């Protein structure tokens, strides 16, 4: 994820310190939302937006974690289930909203569809790593074959 977002954050003056700081802000929400939003911005506005968005997410999620720690025991199962469901519901919408090429759509379909098979074959520890590498490579190959077909 860090590697994939880096081309969008590159500035003419490449400061190692700023890049190391940026690498620490990469998490799912920041990653999907910035991959989708940053290409629309002028190049010199991308890094500031990423830093602002990243720090806002960290501050909010840290505060929410603290709040959650105190209220979890008093929360009914109805609300708690709804809260936990926010994660998959937001992830799939955010990553679909950012999909712009055939490779992105293939990657989403492969990940959604083949995770159960991967977990069945390899167990719940390395299933995600395996399907990421294998399925991601498949999506890339399909993307290349499609481009070759066009030219």
């Amino acid at each position, binding site marked *: 994820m860090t590697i*994939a977002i880096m081309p969008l954050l590159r500035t003419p003056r490449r400061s190692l310190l700023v890049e190391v700081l940026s690498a620490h802000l990469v998490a799912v929400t920041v990653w999907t939302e910035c991959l989708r939003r940053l290409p629309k911005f002028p190049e010199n506005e991308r890094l500031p937006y990423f830093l602002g968005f990243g720090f806002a997410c960290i501050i909010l999620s840290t505060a929410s974690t603290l709040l959650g720690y105190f209220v979890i025991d008093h929360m009914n199962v109805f609300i708690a289930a709804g809260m936990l469901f926010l994660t998959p519901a937001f992830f799939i*919408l955010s990553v679909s909203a950012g999909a712009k090429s055939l490779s992105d759509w293939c990657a989403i379909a492969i*990940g959604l569809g083949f995770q159960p098979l991967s977990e069945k074959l390899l167990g719940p520890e390395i299933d995600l790593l395996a399907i990421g590498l294998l399925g991601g490579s498949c999506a890339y190959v399909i993307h290349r074959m499609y481009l070759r077909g066009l030219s």
Partner: protein
Amino acid sequence: MGLSDWINDPFIPYLVLIIFGFLPTEIWRLAGLFFARRLSIDSEVFIWVRCVATVLLAAVVTKLVLSPVGALATVSLIGRIAGIISGVLAYLIFRRSIALGVIVAETVLMTSMIL
């Protein structure tokens, strides 16, 4: 201070938590950063990495829906799947709003808990 005093120090569990929570992601973050720094901005590697990360994220969604933990495990499988599908449909049909999609997904999930 002897070794046993040091091991029994109440702050040690927090120290261990920080080190072992921090180091595994730290190593890969920095490795990824230094690898990316050496690549040209239009390198094909970036497209492949994006594919790998996207598959992984989509797989996480399936995993969270099919093998949920905690309170979400009390909701029926049909309720969880219907929630995700209706959220995506709402997003596609109504003005491509992520917030609206999430609200519809949550509403369908919670309705399935009442039924």
